[in-house]
């Protein structure tokens, strides 16, 4: 190949944004991404889907059923970070294996009005040994719980960080990503000397 690969091709990494249906994954990806989030075209309206729980998410009319992703380029280090929103409905979980392969880690977005919606994501990452943190998305009108209350409700290991975030706000989303990387650094093995 005629290219000096390290010059031409950046290092690509991915982080998954998970959580239940309507919890703000797409919003989070869009807020953090430098590009308009990209997606396959498959949008469904919530009204057309009998199996989704719509309790507490009356305002959300559509959800993406396939890949939904954004990008952050860290030019000075030649890294491109992809943020993949995971499918929020059980029947699309077959996609998770390909998505999670090689992922650095995951952010599980939680809506305190419907904490149970993120149980499955938490279980998935725990079972696969993928490091994650829980970000409580502060929706308007949602009651604010203390992080420790959320931890107890989700039966989270004490090492799993819980942060608050506003998925609509780019700074907040970026800060949540930093928290995840910091968490990954605490779990990564010390450099061998």
């Amino acid at each position: 190949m005629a290219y000096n690969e390290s010059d031409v091709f950046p290092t690509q990494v991915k982080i998954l944004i998970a959580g239940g249906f309507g919890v703000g994954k797409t919003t989070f990806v869009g807020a953090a991404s430098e590009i308009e989030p990209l997606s396959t075209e498959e949008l469904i309206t919530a009204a057309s889907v009998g199996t989704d729980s719509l309790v507490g998410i009356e305002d959300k009319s559509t959800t993406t059923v396939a890949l939904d992703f954004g990008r952050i380029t860290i030019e000075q280090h030649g890294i491109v970070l992809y943020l993949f929103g995971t499918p929020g409905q059980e029947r699309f979980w077959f996609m998770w294996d390909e998505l999670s392969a090689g992922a650095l880690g995951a952010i599980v977005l939680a809506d305190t009005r419907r904490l149970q919606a993120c149980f499955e994501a938490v279980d998935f990452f725990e079972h696969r040994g993928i490091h994650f943190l829980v970000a409580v998305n502060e929706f308007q009108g949602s009651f604010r719980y203390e992080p420790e209350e959320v931890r107890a409700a989700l039966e989270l290991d004490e090492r799993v960080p819980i942060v608050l975030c506003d998925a609509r706000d780019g700074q907040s989303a970026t800060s949540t990503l930093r928290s995840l990387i910091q968490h990954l650094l605490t779990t990564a093995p010390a450099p061998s000397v």
Partner: protein
Amino acid sequence: MSEAGDDEVWLDDAAGPLVRPYTVSAGRTRPTVELDLLSLVIATGRAARGMDIEHVKVLGLCNTPTSVAEVAAHMRLPVVVTKVLLADLVDCEAMATRAPKPTSGATDRVLLEKLLDGLQRI
């Protein structure tokens, strides 16, 4: 060859774009080149003969290193179809590819520190 109206893109031979990559690939279910969602592709500038319109479109999207996921999103094609198109182009050297590094990502402190540094500057 009859020119189906542009409005009837889902009909007959105009339906080719979706079906044809599979037939072109002689029933291959997986491309000859291993491509991941995050594999990067870049047009080499080498034109190939007999390219379909989709191949030309794909090449046009890849003047800089572009991920398979992005090509699929821009082409509005399923990822699996996009991979076949890309593999065709790699086979005829119109496209170069590099798979994402087999990542020890989550345990690579140097990478994580660079990432954190980058995110702190945003």
